[in-house]
């Protein structure tokens, strides 16, 4: 950061800055957020139309809150996302530690490839393959089917930030701990894990998003009674666009924003 101060005045441009990049960034953020603002604003519309403004009110919120189907779908979504995130993040952390910290071993590359596989396979292919597999072995465990599918495709999403963090970490600190007679567990607990925590948290965050966001795999794998919020919203959109969809979407948006803000604050803590 101090590097900027070394820039002497004779230089006619600030090193590394390019014209137009700032304005692109501004437009990018407008592009990213204006649709969401429109969505939120129209959730307060009192009229029946989702895009023609009638007046400000909460009547669609009342309607959505009293909708049992929405409540059930929300609970399903949360159960699935929390379970899949917990399992996937744990498995990914162990795998990342072995793959980046242990000595080179035979099968290292193939292990890495297998862990990244769910990321490489397009979601729709995973969806139909998992459906075929579950129907072939006759697995019908309701939510558990969805949780298994989510855990599997979430592993690489948790793995990547953790591994990136490990690679950026100075392994001399761990070596120093070993030199000071810390055993493997102590080194892991007091040196590696605290340093790795931001990676684990961002991995878990990413995983949670991916799970709660998922529509395609859930749609193919879920049986009756396993409806999640995305499935419910999709059904509503297909039936016709009412402000009720805006309401459910706005609530999901608020919960997500709150959640990500908390995770962000925790991640920033030393």
């Amino acid at each position, binding site marked *: 950061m101090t590097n900027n101060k070394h820039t002497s005045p004779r230089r006619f441009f600030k090193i590394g800055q390019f014209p137009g990049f700032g304005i692109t960034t501004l437009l*990018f953020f407008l592009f990213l957020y204006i649709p969401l603002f429109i969505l939120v604003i129209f959730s307060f519309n009192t009229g029946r139309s989702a895009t023609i403004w009638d007046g400000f009110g909460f009547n669609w919120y009342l309607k959505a809150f009293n909708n049992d189907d929405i409540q059930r779908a929300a609970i399903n979504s949360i159960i699935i996302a929390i379970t899949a995130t917990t399992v996937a993040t744990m498995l990914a952390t162990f795998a990342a530690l072995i793959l980046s910290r242990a000595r080179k071993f035979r099968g290292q590359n193939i292990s890495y490839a297998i862990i990244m596989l769910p990321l490489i396979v397009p979601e729709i292919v995973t969806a139909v393959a998992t459906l075929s597999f579950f129907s072939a072995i006759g697995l019908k465990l309701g939510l558990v089917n969805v949780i298994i599918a989510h855990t599997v495709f979430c592993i690489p999403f948790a793995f990547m930030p953790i591994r990136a963090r490990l690679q950026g970490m100075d392994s001399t600190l761990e070596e120093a701990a070993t030199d000071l007679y810390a055993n493997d567990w102590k080194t892991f607990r007091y040196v590696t894990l605290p340093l790795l925590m931001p990676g684990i948290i961002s991995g878990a965050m990413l995983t949670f998003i991916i799970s709660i966001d998922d529509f395609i795999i859930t749609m193919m794998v879920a049986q009756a009674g396993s409806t999640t919020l995305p499935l419910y919203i999709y059904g509503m959109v297909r039936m016709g666009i009412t402000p009720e969809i805006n309401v459910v979407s706005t609530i999901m948006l608020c919960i*997500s924003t709150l959640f990500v803000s908390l995770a962000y604050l925790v991640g920033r803590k030393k």
Partner: protein
Amino acid sequence: MNQAKREATRRWLGLGPAILLIFIFMIIPLCIISTYSFLESNPYGGVKPHFSFAAYSQFLFELDFDDNVVFNPAYLMIFWRSFVLALATTILCLLIGFPVAYYIALQPPSKRNLLVFLVTIPFWTNLLIRTFSWILILRDSGVVNNILIWTGIIDKPITLLYTNGAILIGLVYTYIPFIVLPIYATVEKLDIRLFEAAHDLYANRRQLMRYIILPLTAPGIIAGGILVFVPSLGAFIAPNLLGGGKKLMLGSLIQLQFASSRNWPFGSAVALLLMAVVLIAMLIYILGPARKTDMGEHAG
């Protein structure tokens, strides 16, 4: 020797669960659909255990009323549309995403963290919701048409929704954070002293970009590009909601075969075709120039 044994045990305990889970619930299922693609379809769902190439020939040929085999380009068109849209999405995402990622990475730390945070928030917003928000904007009675009519530029709504353009906007909107974050991660790691060195050696901005920044951020660019291209190719939500389900892409085609059309072998065959394209993309990544520097790092 004991040490080596202990390490091997730990390796298995650490790696085993993740690999086993992916093997059982991903690799075996992929083998199953590979098998299905060579079987005959059962009109009541599932497959009949008869070996057949029907699923693959259906991609290019069909039987006409007289049972003659005739060329049918309909599915090839779907494949082509998917490929072009995914490529266009990737290029647009790169063109927008790179300057954004670069600009963010060069900000002072506090501002930088805030901006990265703002990029990740839409991540947390459901994909369906984000796509749905574009229906509100693009439909005939949507925000854009309302504004254009109100300002008197047009007097009748123009069709924006259910076009290829709408699908493209939806795809870019959906996947652009996927490209900003990996590029940001590589730019952030750049050593500013390299810029100064280049500057001292009279490199202009173009040369700085061409010879310093782009090669060093290539792993992020390529990783981001793949992260956008692969899901775009098999996208389902944007084509279905913004394309109206009429302009099919590969994702919708596969889904239809497993849902209403009940032709699992054909669905499996198309899924494998999609996989093949993805593997080609991966191969390009592995053989590409960026990978070499990455491997050099591993060796060192």
